[in-house]
């Protein structure tokens, strides 16, 4: 098989796997944040701030592996 074809294939699979882990993690984070806000609405501001920060960090990890995937696809 053409090595470039394998590289594209791998990049596609990599991107898919990345988004599974990332979206699952952020989904769990959002669920916990919603529950926390529901239990104590006057802590909503703090919880929202913490949620955005952690979501940013999880997204950072997602983008690490996305960079690896893009390197596979474009090199």
């Amino acid at each position, binding site marked *: 098989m053409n090595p470039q074809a394998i590289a594209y294939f791998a990049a596609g699979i990599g991107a898919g796997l990345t988004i599974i882990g990332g979206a699952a993690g952020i989904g769990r984070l959002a669920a916990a944040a919603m529950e926390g806000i529901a239990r104590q609405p006057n802590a909503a501001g703090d919880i929202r701030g913490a949620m955005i920060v952690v979501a940013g*960090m999880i997204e950072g990890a997602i*983008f690490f592996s996305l960079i690896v995937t893009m390197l596979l696809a474009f090199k």
Partner: protein
Amino acid sequence: MGPISILLAAVEGAGAAPAGAGHEGPAEILMHHVLDQRLGHFYVGPFDLAPTKHLLFFVAAALLLLVVIRMALRGYQQGVPRGLAAAVEGLVLFVRDEIAVKNIGHDGHKYTPLLLSFFFFILAAAFLGLVPFSATATGNVSVTLGLAVVSFIAMQYAGISTNGLLHHFTGMIPPGLPWFLIPIMIPVELLGMFSKPFALTIRLFANMLAGHMVIGALLMLVPLTAAISTLLGISMIPVSLGLALFVMVLEILVAFIQAFIFTLLSAIFIGMFAHPSH
């Protein structure tokens, strides 16, 4: 990176060749728009010192910030800020109180100017990148690497100036460890010290790059579907433009969030080194 410039390039590219093949397929146009482009040549020895597009917008973001903040400073009437000054002051107080003092402690105000520079520069670079025919300076890994190196220097300065050179490194090892774990902790902590700025670099770079690639890909839907049938392509235009505009609005939010996260994480790391209290 705007809808108009991409659509213009796509129309002339797709008219010359079918999608994917030929000299300017949609993928090439997309990469053309997010990657750096050198403007002219100016060779000094083996180095080409001509400015590139990202460098130009890097300088433009810095100049824009200088001009806007100067304009904001003039809005102080009898000690009460009005208009632009109030908006800038709101953000400045937010960075100082919520980010600097909360994470670095009582001497947070020493690092506030640096954190403010990070925050406003990343914000300005991202906003400039949303204008048509422009480029996002922070979408270049060299720029974000430079910001992360400055953050790294700030972390080292914080640790060494507060704790002294020896304690800066010995304070990284948590107290109360069994003695046989210490040889393992040394490389782990050193690796952690270098991985923090690296994470900052990649996070900011990839966020900015990915946002613009999504916008470009959505706009590339038009020539791609136009290669199948012209009517389908024309009917894709409002859909594609609408989605791209929505993603650009989302990019504004992402700009704020990424600036905030870069600043917050820098402050947290500076605080960790200035006051190691594991």
